[in-house]
Structures are given as C-alpha cells and as structure tokens.
C-alpha cells in the first residue's frame, strides 16, 4: 500500500497508539505516584481517541438527526425541533450522512469509568502520603521497610492503633 496513504489515512491510529505507549510508559516506569496516574489518564484517553476516531465518516454530521433532512441552517429549526421532530422525519435517513453513534456511547461510559478510577486512585495516593510522608515509590518502599523493621504490625489492629471514634458516615 502507498506509504503516504498508510501514514496519513491512518493518522488517527498512529496518534492514539503513540499516546497510549507514552501513557503506558509513564504508568510503568515513573517513580512518582501522581505521574503514574497522569500516565494512566493519558493511556485511557488515547484508547478513547482510538474508538471515537473509528466512528468518523467523511462529510458526515454529528449523530443528531436533522429535523428537516439535510438542511444547512440548523439554527432556525432548533426552536421547532422539540415539537416537530416526531413528524418531521418521514423520508429515509441516509446512514452515511451521520456518524456512527455506537463508539460515542461506549466512550461516554469509558470516560466516566476513567474519572471514577482516577478519583479513587488519587484518594489512595493521599492515604499513602498520610501514612508514609512521600509520594515517590522508592521513598515509600523505604519507609515501609523501616516501619516493618521497627515492629509495626501489618494489617491486624495493633493495640496502639485504636479504632476511630465515632462514625465516618457523612454528616
């Protein structure tokens, strides 16, 4: 296949794969916990880019059906859209005129999942910081080793670890 076509015609795949690899590299090799999370974000966003770019169609509109067919001026119809949408579209809709909605839907879900994971991971980093005073992986591991050598218990509640008073349920 023509090399130019291969690179330009598939530029979206190149872009998303390069971004994915940057993100993956950060997740694995960075020492700082927050940088790992930034890598995670980049990685997930690159996958989202991959999916969404697959839904593109040359010359197509966004996946919202026009009330009166392929009318160029959308603004006029916006007001009547709510009432007339139901009876406006009698003629067949050309599937190539609108982008594929399915990847958009899937990626809405993926974005939400990514945000949720990021939130939870950030909370975890805060907890690690509160326990060990650092967010660099090597320093944390050193602090853990020191704590173990000094006689801290692993996970069972030790006598010095009094259970928190009261309820953590939201006030």
């Amino acid at each position: 296949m023509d090399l130019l076509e291969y690179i330009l015609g598939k530029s979206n795949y190149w872009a998303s794969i390069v971004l994915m690899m940057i993100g993956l590299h950060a997740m694995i090799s960075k020492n700082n916990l927050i940088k790992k999370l930034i890598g995670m974000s980049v990685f997930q966003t690159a996958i989202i880019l991959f999916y969404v770019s697959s839904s593109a169609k040359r010359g197509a509109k966004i996946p919202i059906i026009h009330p009166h067919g392929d009318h160029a001026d959308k603004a006029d119809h916006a007001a009547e859209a709510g009432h007339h949408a139901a009876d406006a579209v009698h003629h067949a809709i050309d599937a190539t005129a609108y982008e594929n909605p399915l990847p958009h839907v899937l990626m809405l879900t993926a974005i939400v999942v990514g945000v949720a994971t990021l939130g939870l991971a950030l909370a975890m980093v805060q907890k690690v910081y509160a326990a060990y005073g650092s967010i660099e992986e090597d320093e944390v591991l050193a602090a853990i080793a020191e704590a173990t050598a000094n006689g801290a218990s692993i996970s069972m509640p030790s006598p010095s670890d009094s259970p928190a008073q009261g309820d953590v349920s939201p006030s």
Partner: protein
Amino acid sequence: MSEQIPLLILLVPLLGAVGLGLFALRRPAAAMPVVFGALGIAVLAAIHTLLRIVDEGGSVITYNLAGWDRLPERASGKAIGIEYKIDAFNALVLVLITAVALVNALYLRARIAVECAGKEILYAVLYLLLVVGLCGMVITNDAFNLYVLLEISSLTSYALIGIGRRRAAHASFNYIITGTIGASFYLLGVGYLYMQVGTLNIGDIHEVLTASAELRASASVKVACMMIMAGLWLKMAMFPMHGWLPNAYRYAPSPSGSLMAPLVTKVMVVVMLRVMVNLFGLDYLFAELNWRPVIVGLACVAILAGSLLALAQRDLRAMLCYLIVAEVGYMVGGAWVGNEAGITGVAYHVLSDACMTFCLFLAAAAIILRTGEHRLGAFRGAFQRIPVAMTAFTVGAFSMIGLPPTCGFFSKWYLLQGGIEAGQWHYVAALLISSLVNAVLFFRIFEIALFGKIEVPETGVRDVDALPRDTWERVPAATKVGLVVAAIAVIAVGLLNRPIALWIGKALNFIEVAG
C-alpha cells in the same frame, strides 16, 4: 415471572447497596442484616436458576435487556441491545459467587466493627456491589458490558482493600495501576475486534469470525485476541504479572481478603473461558493461532514459581496468596491445552479452587484471630486450641494437595487427563511437582500443629506481627458455622464431580458453535 428471576441475582444486591446509601448512612447496625438479606435472596435466585436449567436439560436462558429483540432475519438477525446468556456452567458459578459471599458475611459480621470501625455501611455497600459486578460479568453476552462490570468489580475491590490500615493503601495503589492496565488492554482488544467486526455481541462476533477466513487470518484479530488475553491475565494475576496479588490480599482487611481471594481471579478465568470458547472459538485459537506451546509453557512456569514462592513464605497469608498464583497457572495451562478434558477440567477447577481457597483463607483468618500470630508458629498446638478452624484448614490443605475425596483431587484428575491426552508432558509434570510441593508445605504445617516444632530456627528477632495476648479472641460461633460450611462444600463439590463435569460439558458444547 420466573423469566425475571435470574435478574434478581443482580438486582437485589444492587438495590440493597443503594438502599443502604439512601436510608442507612448513619445506622451502622443496618449493614449486616441488609447484606445477609440481599445475598440470601441472591443465592436463592441463583439456585432457582440452576435448577431450572438442569430441569430443562441444560438449556440456555437468553434475556434481552431493555426488551430489544434481535433485528428480524431479513435485516440481518443481529442483536441491537444487550443480552445475557445463562447456561449450566454460568449458573453454577453464580451459585458459587453468591454462596461464598453469603458464608463470608458470617465472618464479616464478627470483624466489621473492628477492622472497619465507623465505616460499616460503606464496607457493606462495596461488598454488595462487588458481588453484583462479579455475577454480572459471568452472565453477560456483550463484550463492552463485560468491561463495565469488570470495572465495577475492580473499583469495589480497590476500595475494599484500600479501606484497610497501614500498608493496605500502597498495596491497593499498585493493584489500581496493574488492574487499570489490564482493563484498558481488554478494552483496546475489544476495540480492535469492533473495528473489524462491527458488533459487540459475543455471539455475533463469533458468527462473523467463523464465517470469514480472511478475518481469521488478519493481524488485527490476532492482536485483538492477544490484547484481550493479556488484559485478562493481568487481572487474574498470571505470572509474571502477579505482583499485585500477594500484597493486596495480605494487607486488606481480613473479610475482604477472604471474599476476594476465592472469587476475583476465578471469575476472570471464567471470563477467559468464555472469550476462548464463545467469542473466538476453540478451533480458531488452536488451529489458526499457534500459541499453545508458549502459553502452556508460561503456565508451567507460573505453577512452579507460585508453588516454590509459597514454600519460601513464612507468613501464612502470603503463602496462601502465592498458592493462588500457582492455581491460576493450573487454570490458564489447562485452558490452553485446549482439548475437551482440559477445558472441562478448568471449568471444574474454577468451582473447586474457589471452595478450597475460601476454606483456607477463612480458616487462616480464624487462626490468626485466635492465636495473634501471622506466621507459621500460629499453628502450634492448633488442633487443641482451635479445633474447628484447624479441621477446616486441614480439609482445604488436603484439597490443595489433591487427596480424594476432596474437590482438589478431582480437578487435578481432569487437568492431568487433559494434559496427557494432548501430550503436554511439561504441564503434567508441573502439576505433579506442584502437588508434591504443596504436600511438603502443608505437612510442614501439620508437623508444627501436632508436634509444636518450627523447623527454621528463630534468630532471636521477635515476631513483629504477633499481637499481645489481650487482643486474641475466641473464634465467633458464626465464623465456625462458616468454616464448617466451607469444609463441607470442598468435600461435596468433590463427591459431585461427575454430575458437575457432565453439566459443564453440556454447557460448553451447547454454546460452542459446531466447527
């Protein structure tokens, strides 16, 4: 109405969890009753579903969510909504998940106020939602829906581990990083497949792949398969990507450990089986892709590494965690041996390993509770001090070693059969060696229990994890009940191995499209 009962397995715990969030945020006493109630109903619904499928001779229950039936045949017959499919094997796994969660709740009841003080309701919500995620993953027939439920299970497990003290947060963070890479690889693999096939419904994807030799030969489908497998292996702690598991399950609060250790990795294996059998199809995987030698070899390394690392551990829970890594090796190897005996063996092993891991983890938690020690010294005189827990531990240990009539024996039997039939002698050897190593491991423990000796001489450093005498507790009665149920299950699943294997065979053949 009975059409809707399978859905209750998912809906009742879900509504229980949100109900707690809605009404009981400041009433910690409500946590356990709701957990018991919701899981009890879920278990009953799962058993009902299983009995219905067995009664109907192994039929498959298909359910279209949101009422969208497939497109009419003239318009291609494809699925436009999401559907789920339950066959005999899935139904067994559903019963397993809900039952283990329910029995574990007996133990949870004793520990929740101590290990998660002030956060009981939050813990209960996460607990119930983990069960929802796991059950949903098992029955869904849509590749993307599987991803969403995978993430629900993952997020709840991250939180159930991170809620613990001390090292739990760091262990959970590592789990988050590895788990997210795994889930994202899975998503990428599904994306690659979607680009070539155009649908997300597992059955439809299989149809398209079977029909098109060109697709089967293409690099993108191969890479998709690779990415999906890699993602699932990351999530099931397949060696060498197992690093997150020992720390995560050791430092988590003990009820979390005893819930997740038996279930999470096994459900990932079930998903892997589903992907192999239903999505790609065994003939594609074994005739066209020639990965079997590599993967079975990797599995053998996993088995040996897991067993030897377990042998090297001095901490009880760490030892059990490495045994899980070895068990995952059994399952991945057995699945990729690829013949009917192998796959049936893996499916049966999912059930049996879950039971025995649960039994061992629960017994270990009870022993640690009673003796205050994390290390093997905890077993000194255990048969007299903690008879119920020690007996349950013994049953679990026999199962791990592979002695009849426990389920471990029968699952090893099927796996060995599969390995021998396929001529995978390194796999057979690895299984036998690991049984030997397990025997050494557990008999060492029995020696300590019966004769009170510890082989490794103490070097004068005090056991840093030993708890002072006044925190030791007698094992609560409810936990004893749980231990007895777990031990009985290990033996029962073993004795029932013929009917279970029969139903598994039916289920997997039923869905495996001819060819």
